[in-house]
C-alpha cells in the first residue's frame, strides 16, 4: 500500500468526490420531486394514474439499477430515432445517463416511502381538513404532505445511503466518481489496494456524515412526535 500515490493523485479523488456528491444530490432532488405525484396518486387511489404509478414503482424496485443505467446508456443508442433527436447530446453523455437513471430509481423508492407515510396518516386528520373547508388539493398540500414528509425522514435517511451505494454504478459507464477515480488510479499504476481502499474510506466517511446529518434533522423535525411521548412518560 503506497499512500504517496494516493496523495500525489488527490485531485483525481477530489474530482471523484465532487462527481459523486452532485450526482447523488441532484438524483435525490429530481427523484424526490417525481416521488410526490407518484405517492399521491397511489395513496389516494386515483384511477388509471394510481395503477400506472404502482406498476412503474414495482418494475423499478424489482430490477437492478445496473440494468436500468445500461438500458439508458447502451440500450437507447440502438434506435436511430434517439440518435437523431434533439436529446441525443444529452443521452450520449454518460453522466447525464447516470443522473437520469438514478433519479428515476430514487423516484420509485422515495415514492414508496411517501406512499406508506401518507397511508399511515389518521383518518381524523383528513376529516378535520375537510371540516375546515379545505379542498382536497389544499388538504394534501397543507396538511397531508408536510406531515407525511416529516414522518418519512427516518426511512428517507436509508434511501439517501442506498443512493450513495447505488451511485457507484456510474463508474461502470465511464463516469469518474469516487470509485471511478479509484479504478483509474489502479489501472494507471497497475496497483489494486490503493484505489479501491481509498474509495472505500471516502464512501465510509460520506455515509457517516449523512447519518449524522439525518440524526440532527430528525431531532429538529421529529421532536414534536417524540416530545409528546416524553411528556406523557414524565407525567406518569
Amino acid at each position, binding site marked *: 500500500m503506497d499512500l504517496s500515490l494516493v496523495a500525489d493523485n488527490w485531485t483525481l479523488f477530489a474530482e471523484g468526490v465532487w462527481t459523486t456528491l452532485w450526482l447523488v444530490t441532484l438524483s435525490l432532488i429530481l427523484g424526490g420531486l417525481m416521488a410526490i405525484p407518484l405517492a399521491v396518486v397511489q395513496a389516494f387511489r386515483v384511477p388509471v394514474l394510481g395503477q400506472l404509478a404502482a406498476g412503474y414503482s414495482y418494475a423499478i424496485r424489482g*430490477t437492478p439499477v445496473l440494468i436500468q443505467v*445500461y*438500458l439508458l446508456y447502451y440500450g437507447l443508442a440502438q434506435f436511430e430515432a434517439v440518435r437523431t433527436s434533439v436529446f441525443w447530446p444529452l443521452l450520449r453523455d454518460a453522466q447525464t445517463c447516470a443522473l437520469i437513471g438514478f433519479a428515476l430509481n430514487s423516484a420509485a423508492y422515495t415514492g414508496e416511502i411517501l406512499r406508506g407515510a401518507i397511508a399511515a396518516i389518521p383518518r381524523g386528520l383528513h376529516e378535520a381538513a375537510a371540516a375546515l373547508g379545505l379542498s382536497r388539493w389544499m388538504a394534501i398540500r397543507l396538511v397531508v404532505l408536510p406531515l407525511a414528509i416529516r414522518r418519512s425522514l427516518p426511512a428517507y435517511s436509508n434511501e439517501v445511503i442506498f443512493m450513495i451505494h447505488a451511485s*457507484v*454504478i456510474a*463508474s461502470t459507464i465511464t463516469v469518474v466518481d469516487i*470509485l471511478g477515480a479509484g479504478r483509474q488510479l489502479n489501472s494507471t499504476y497497475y496497483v*489494486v*489496494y490503493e484505489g*479501491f481502499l481509498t474509495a472505500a474510506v471516502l464512501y465510509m466517511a460520506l455515509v457517516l456524515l449523512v447519518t449524522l446529518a439525518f440524526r440532527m434533522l430528525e431531532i429538529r423535525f421529529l421532536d414534536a412526535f417524540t416530545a409528546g411521548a416524553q411528556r406523557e412518560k414524565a407525567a406518569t
Partner: protein
Amino acid sequence: MDDLIEFAPLVLSGLWVTVSLSLTSLGLAVLFGFAGVSLKLSKARWLRALGTGYTTLIRGIPDLVLMLLFYFGGQIALNQIGQMTGLWDFVEINQFVAGSLTIGFIFGAYMTETFRGAYLALPNGQLDAARALGLRGILTLRLVVLPQLVPLALPSFTNNWLVLLKTTALVSIIGLQDIVYNANQAGRSTQQPFIFLFLAFFVYLGLTFLSQLLLNWLRRRYTRHEGLAHGS
C-alpha cells in the same frame, strides 16, 4: 426478431448462473448473519464491538467497491501469502467464489440486523419458561428460540433476499457470465443492446415476482396459528 430468437438461449443460460449465485450467496449470508448476531448479542464487550464494526463497515462501503476489492485484492493477497509461506503456487480466484463471498458477506450484515430484531421481539417470558423447564443453552435455542424466530424474521428476510437478488447483477462487472453479462454480449453481437437488456430486465422482474409469491406463501404458512396463539 430473428436475433432475439437466436440469442435468447445465450442470455437465458445466464439465468442458471444468476440463480445459483443468488442461492449460494443467501446461504453464506445466513451463516455470516448467525455469526454477526452471536457477536452482537454476546456478553463480552469487545465481541459486541466487533459485531457493530461489521455492520457499520457494510453500511458504509458500497457493494461494488467491496466486490472489486475482494476479487482483485484477494487474488494478490492470496498469492502473496502463498509466496511467503511456500504453501501454494499461483492461484486464481474464481469469479463465482469472489462474487458469492462478497455478496454473502454484505448481506450477512443485513441478516445480522434481521436476526437481532427477531430475537429482541421474542418475549422474555419464553426464555424464562425454557429455563424453568430445565432447558439450557443449545436446547433452548433449538426448541424454543429458532422455531419462533422464523415467522418473526421472515418479512425482513424476504426484503433482504429481494435486494440480494438484484445485487447479483454486479458480478457481470468482474466477468462472471450471468444474465446481464450475456445480455450485453448478445446486444453487442447483434447491435441491438436495448432488446437484450430489456430481456434481462424482465427476467429480473420475473425472479422478483416469483420470490414474492414463494415467500408470501411461506409467511402465511408460518403465521397460520398466530391469531390463535395471541387470542389465548
